Each structure stands twice: as C-alpha cells, then as structure tokens.
C-alpha cells in the first residue's frame, strides 16, 4: 500500500570535530525502522567517518565509529564512498572499516556494504534518489 522511497543521506563532514557525523548516523539508524530504501554516501571529509582505528581513549569524546557496523543489521546495506575524495586524502578502501551486511537471501553470507564509486557514478546514483539529506 505505502510507497517505498529511495532515501539517501549524504555525509560530508569529518567525525568528532563537529556533531554532523554523529547526528547523521543517528538519524539513519532511527529512520531505518520505517522500511524505506535507505543508502548513505560519504563525500569530501565524510570519508573520514568510516576510517579504521578511531580511538577516543585519550580524549573525553564518545567513540561512535563502532555504530557504523550496525547499519547492515538495520537494512542500510549501500554505503557509497566517493573515489576522488579518498584519493585527495591519500586513503584507500583498506583504510576504511570493513563494514558488511548479511544477505538473508544468500544463506546470510556477509557482503561488503562499502562501494567505492567515482564522482560521475555517484552523481547518477544521487539523481535516482527520491529524498536527499545532507549532514
């Protein structure tokens, strides 16, 4: 009866220095209960959000990076990372957390959620969305 919409959350801010990254992640996790077609895109400094090895033990900040691992369980299985943004920052996909989702149609096999896409491809994916959020 209800229409499923393609909703994309675009993340362009680095984690910790400002609250955008944490807020964006919390909105996605909260909204996942509504069974829409949700995906996330990481552009610009947003790619830093899913970098491996974040350790806040020397600062008084909350390390929310492990929460990205829950996205697969919440049905958010498409995490697009812009290739150019990685290159500009001297990063490769190996510097990112190995985020996966379990495909219940394929014997719960773990599959990577992260898709590295060039800007031209991501632009196309963005144009296909029904609703866009920026954080």
């Amino acid at each position: 009866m209800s229409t499923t919409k393609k909703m994309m959350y675009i993340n362009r801010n680095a984690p910790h220095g400002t609250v955008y990254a944490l807020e964006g992640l919390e909105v996605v996790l909260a909204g996942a209960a509504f069974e829409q077609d949700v995906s996330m895109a990481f552009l610009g400094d947003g790619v830093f959000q899913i970098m491996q090895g974040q350790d806040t033990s020397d600062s008084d900040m909350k390390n929310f990076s492990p929460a990205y691992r829950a996205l697969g369980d919440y049905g958010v299985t498409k995490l697009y990372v812009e290739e150019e943004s990685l290159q500009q920052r001297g990063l490769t996909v190996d510097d990112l957390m190995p985020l996966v989702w379990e495909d219940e149609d394929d014997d719960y096999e773990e599959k990577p959620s992260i898709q590295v896409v060039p800007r031209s491809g991501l632009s196309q994916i963005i144009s296909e969305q029904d609703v866009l959020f920026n954080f």
Partner: protein
Amino acid sequence: MLHTVNKSPFSSDSLSLCLDYASEQDVVVLIEDGVYAAMKGSNSEAMVLESLASKKLFAIGADLKTRGIAEEKIIDGIQVVGYDGFVDLVANNDKVQSWL
C-alpha cells in the same frame, strides 16, 4: 606567536591562510579536525612539507588518535604533543591566534 588550526585542510582554507601568515618564529598547532593535515599522502601534504622547511608544526596526539591517524601515517617533521605540551607551548608564546 602561536597559531591553532582546527579545521581540515580539505574543507577550509584556514590552514593555508595560517601558514601564509605565520612567520619563522611562530609555532603552528593542529588541533581537532586540523590534525587531518598531518596525514601523509594527501593533497595538502606538499603545502605542509613546504612550511616545515621554515616553521615548527605540532599536532595534538589525542586528536590524531581519536581520528584513527596512526603514528606512521604522520608527516615527518610534525611533532606530536599532548595536552601538557600544548599548555607549555601556549605559555611560551606571547600571543595566540586561533584560526577557526
């Protein structure tokens, strides 16, 4: 003078401006998101290396660790400093300019 830069060099021109304004007697401290400029292999590495030839650059250890930037990924020449060291730097410089 001591300068602090708290924004990533990819999202703001704060670091680029700061390095242009800082003199050879000045000290530049990368804090918060500013520490992303300390990473090797990025587009901003050349600008940082050029500055290191004539200026002292520091980066806050806790901020690097929080963001997952390991020691071996830090540009050679940038000195990692803790909060105690940061306090010493501020105390030993007559003025502070925070590039927000």
